[in-house]
């Protein structure tokens, strides 16, 4: 039986994640939202480390914080004129959305809480310590086809972005 109770580090990270996620979806200035998103992604990397997924945590910091968030900030600076930064950011049906999302969230948590513990079939052994090496092995053996497909996808995305974003020459 893997130890399942969580320590204070989890609660700190969970508080950071939830607080920054709420900031991402509710702040008025879209630039501040991007900064809150960076904090949220960092805290999720911390959660991955708590879950013994060190490689995924490193990939999260490199790809999300290093690439995606910077890309977001670039796009915000290119598209939003900062003079009109205090425009209303949410649509008028925000109250209905709050209701729907709260219902979804509470429903999911109720389902988790109401599920009997024996349904989960917890594993008896714990995660191997060298799971980064195992990931490398998997990438080269069982998952070699998805690996190649995903590299093709990345190249297609790169070419697509260049084709879409360049100026029309006429």
């Amino acid at each position, binding site marked *: 039986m*893997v130890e*399942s109770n969580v320590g204070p580090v989890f609660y700190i990270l969970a508080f950071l*994640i*939830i607080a920054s*996620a709420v900031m*991402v*979806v509710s702040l008025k200035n*879209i630039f501040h*939202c991007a900064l809150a*998103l960076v904090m*949220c992604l960092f805290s*999720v990397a911390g*959660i*991955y480390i708590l*879950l*013994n*997924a060190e*490689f*995924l945590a490193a*990939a999260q910091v490199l*790809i*999300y914080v290093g*690439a*995606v968030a910077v*890309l*977001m900030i670039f796009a*915000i600076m*290119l*598209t939003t004129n900062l003079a009109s930064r205090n425009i*209303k*950011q949410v649509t008028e049906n*925000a109250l209905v*959305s*709050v209701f*729907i*999302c709260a219902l*979804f*969230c509470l429903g*999911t*948590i109720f389902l*988790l809480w109401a599920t009997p513990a024996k349904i989960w079939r*917890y*594993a008896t*052994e*714990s*995660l*191997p310590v060298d799971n980064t090496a195992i*990931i490398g092995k*998997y*990438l080269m053996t069982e998952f070699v086809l*998805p690996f190649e497909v*995903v590299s093709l*996808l*990345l190249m*297609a*995305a790169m070419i697509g*972005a*260049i084709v*879409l*974003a360049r100026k029309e020459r006429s």
Partner: protein
Amino acid sequence: MLPYLALAAVLFSAGLFGVLTRRNTLGILMSLELMFNAANINFVTFNKFISPDNMIGQMFAIFVVVVAAAEAVVGMAIVLLIYRNWQGVNVDNMRIMKW
């Protein structure tokens, strides 16, 4: 395990709220990233607590991260294109495909 899943549920709901209510396209994309992260937390949690003998959950999370990066790149390019054509990225203005 349950605290991690509950955290993922809250994070997913926050992202869902953002997708439903944001007017800025970039805000919608950012909320989408939140939802991807919630799904990833679920994958890694189940991998650790249910089936630690194979690493399928973590592999899947890695592929989700990569596909999210590709999605973000293409999404940003489309947003820049929309900005160039309509001088704004609010979704209220994008009704060209609406009947």
